[in-house]
């Protein structure tokens, strides 16, 4: 082991039913460093953290902690705290109704001779802790009286005061504004000077470069590499996170369309949803496949949700086929000929106990209104048509959708929206979690639909599949539409746009 190392994890492997969440992952944390743990959704960041903090029980591998002999295996957050690993999550895990001091000391209060809690003593100690950290607050006030940033810092102070050697910050900045983030960074740097090893998980690239010393990248549950910050410019980081290898599927023939001549289907101007998407302008043409790229949390799904009315726009205008419209809720969008395949199909898409037929006709029925049922014969025709068209593999159209594989479930949801005969379809991660063959089938279908004159918004975290299907791409970063690419669509140009910032490193 090198000197100064406070935590090493070697060969951590962890399997969930059907998925290898972590495969032989290494992680090394040194004293007094801020170490970013990066990776896209499903890369295994949270799984690794849960292994370190005792929430997950990993199958293979060893964790060593400075000052403790032999491998360490935690079985609860409490175990982890006892060996010096504390975690602060995005949601503050403190009690808002108690005072700051109580939050620092509850469960380990100093006692008086009468075995009652010694308020005076812990109030004094708490004030000292906060003063030492340079946080000027009155510790006898209830926690709820302070901003989220302060609450976050109180959580960190509690962790640090419990003698933690390893401080894991899991997306602590997601709900903070810029000023608060800066305050948090000041605190993090101070702790670094005190020799605490900090693991920082975030999806904001700017923040990684603002505060971290080192980066470990995971992808699909495997260890990609560990880099000092200076050796990994943004573009390379994005490449490491997303993987560069283009998959060698048959090329799909894209229709070239003339943007100036074709009809504008969707025309958004300074459309915005406060808190998630900054104002954006966007024109989508008939027969076009437009890709939306960006890292997870960059606002790519949110952009689509605003157009579709799943998040009601807080300001801005939207024209559909040249007509000014107001969309308050998804049904309005459906009546205007839109459809949206949500990215979380388990939560927002499939209804597991209904049959394939019922799942397919759901949106059509909603559009007609519940009082006008679709005749059974028509339903059966529709279902059969799409089962055939999308080659959905199923025992029968009356089988429960639960019994199908993920890819086939995805096709059923796709069929649901196709059945509404929507002119504008939003597909959010339509190929996630399905096998390569089905993936390329869906990609082909998207292109075919565009050829028929439908407009499609294709959102994906895989750049390669968007390159294969899209005519144009919109790039999102930190909730802002930063670029529109049409001519020069290459892996490199897209990654550079996603990464932003220091283009000089290219």
């Amino acid at each position, binding site marked *: 082991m090198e000197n100064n190392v406070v935590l090493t994890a070697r060969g951590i492997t962890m399997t969930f039913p059907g998925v290898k969440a972590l495969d032989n992952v290494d992680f090394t944390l040194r004293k007094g460093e801020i170490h970013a743990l990066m990776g896209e959704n499903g890369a295994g960041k949270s799984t690794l953290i849960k292994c370190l903090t005792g929430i997950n029980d990993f199958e293979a591998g060893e964790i060593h902690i400075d000052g403790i002999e032999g491998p360490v295996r935690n079985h609860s957050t409490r175990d982890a705290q006892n060996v010096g690993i504390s975690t602060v999550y995005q949601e503050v*895990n403190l009690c808002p109704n*108690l005072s700051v001091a109580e939050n620092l000391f509850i469960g380990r209060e100093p006692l008086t001779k009468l075995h*009652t*809690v010694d308020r005076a003593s812990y109030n004094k100690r708490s004030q000292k802790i906060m003063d030492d950290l340079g946080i000027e607050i009155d510790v006898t006030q209830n926690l709820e009286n302070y901003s989220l940033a302060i609450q976050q810092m109180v959580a960190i102070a509690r962790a640090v005061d419990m003698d933690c050697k390893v401080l894991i910050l899991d997306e602590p900045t997601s709900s903070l504004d810029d000023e608060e983030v800066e305050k948090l960074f000041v605190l993090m740097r101070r702790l670094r000077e005190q020799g605490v090893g900090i693991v920082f998980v975030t999806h904001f690239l700017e923040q990684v470069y603002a505060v971290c010393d080192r980066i470990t990248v995971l992808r699909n549950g495997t260890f990609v590499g560990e880099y000092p910050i200076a050796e990994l410019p943004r573009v390379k980081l994005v490449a490491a996170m997303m993987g560069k290898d283009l998959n060698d599927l048959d090329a799909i023939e894209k229709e070239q369309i003339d943007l100036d001549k074709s009809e504008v289907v969707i025309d958004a101007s300074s459309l915005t949803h406060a808190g998630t998407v900054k104002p954006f302008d966007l024109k989508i043409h008939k027969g076009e496949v437009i890709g939306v790229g960006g890292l997870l949390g960059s606002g790519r799904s949110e952009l689509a949700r605003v157009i579709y009315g799943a998040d009601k726009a807080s300001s801005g205008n939207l024209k559909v086929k040249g007509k000014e419209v107001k969309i308050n809720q998804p049904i309005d969008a459906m009546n205007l000929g839109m459809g949206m395949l949500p990215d979380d199909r388990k939560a927002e898409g499939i209804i597991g106990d209904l049959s394939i037929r019922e799942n397919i006709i759901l949106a059509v029925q909603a559009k007609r209104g519940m009082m006008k049922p679709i005749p059974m014969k028509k339903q059966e025709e529709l279902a059969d048509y799409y089962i055939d068209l999308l080659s959905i593999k199923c025992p029968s159209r009356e089988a429960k959708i639960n019994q199908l594989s993920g890819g086939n479930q995805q096709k059923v949801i796709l069929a649901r929206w196709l059945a509404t005969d929507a002119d504008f379809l939003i597909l959010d991660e339509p190929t996630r979690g399905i096998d390569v063959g089905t993936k390329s089938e869906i990609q082909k279908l998207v292109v075919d639909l565009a050829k028929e004159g439908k407009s499609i918004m294709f959102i994906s975290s895989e750049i390669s599949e968007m390159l294969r299907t899209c005519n144009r791409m919109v790039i999102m970063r930190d909730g802002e539409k930063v670029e529109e690419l049409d001519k020069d669509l290459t892996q490199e140009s897209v990654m550079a746009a996603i990464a932003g910032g220091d283009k000089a490193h290219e």
Partner: protein
Amino acid sequence: MKNTKLNGNTILLFITIALFVVLYAGGCIAYGEKGFTHFQTFLNILITNAGLICISCGLTVVMLTAGIDISVGAVVAMDCMLLAVGMQKGIGAVPMILIILLIGVVFGAVQGYLIGYLQIQPFIVTMAGMFFARGMTAVICTDQVSITQETNELFYNIANYKIKLPFGGYINNHDVYVEPYIRVGVVVALLVLILIFLMLRYTKFGRALYAVGGSEQSAAMMGLNVKLTKLKAYVLCSVLTSIGGICYCLNTMSGSVQQALGYEMDAISSAVIGGTLLTGGVGNVVGTFFGVLINGTISSIVKTNGKLASSWPNILTAALLFLFIVIQSIFAVIREKKKA
């Protein structure tokens, strides 16, 4: 910064106390000639509600954990019936009281285990408890059973023992000085009140109750034993209900299936008027005490008036509850705004 200790919750407590003062003063002004101004009127409110004070303290404890116990009314009926029948069968007052307390521990432990460890909804668990206790009362005896001097001398004497107070008396129409008095139940209730107040404020268990109610997940993350804390809360509530049941029995001196109907709602409303939030984590027994006093004052005013139908206290309590819930949510909204 130090002078801003006055947060929303303390303001609520002040409102409760102020409301009590206003109500009581109103009673004094309106019914002064009917004797409302006598100190004894206030003491009578305490005497009548001694049991309710104990039980409301118990409910405050479980409500702090964001729980509820709706079995308490039925348990009071069961306790009274047991006391009456037991002593009629010749069992002494002291053993009977110990049995009642023991039943409280067991009853609370079962409910607490189901709620804390098996994580069943407190409402459902204690509703089952309520049906069980009410049913058991009828199983023990379906008739009304009175406790008289013959049934148990000691119990009878305790019930009729007047603790005279050396101040606040008055001279009645016959020129006789009437000494104010309280009964044993009041002493018990005030003792309970003080002990629970200290427990909530100064013991690890007391603070853990607030933490669990504030955020269960956080409490667990901070290393508190949430399940055990809940179990203990329900045991404590049940024991306080037993104590309250005994105080109640000292007033009614009988056991009956129809007794203490809706008592749980009186206790809950007292706690809520006293500033305890049903969502947990906020509240204290001082507020609850004033909640009981407010309810008691309303009944007392209606009784003194003599002409108002006995349903008026319910309507007034409803209005007050409504008022308090609105005030509470206004404070919550203000707090959110301040943060944003």
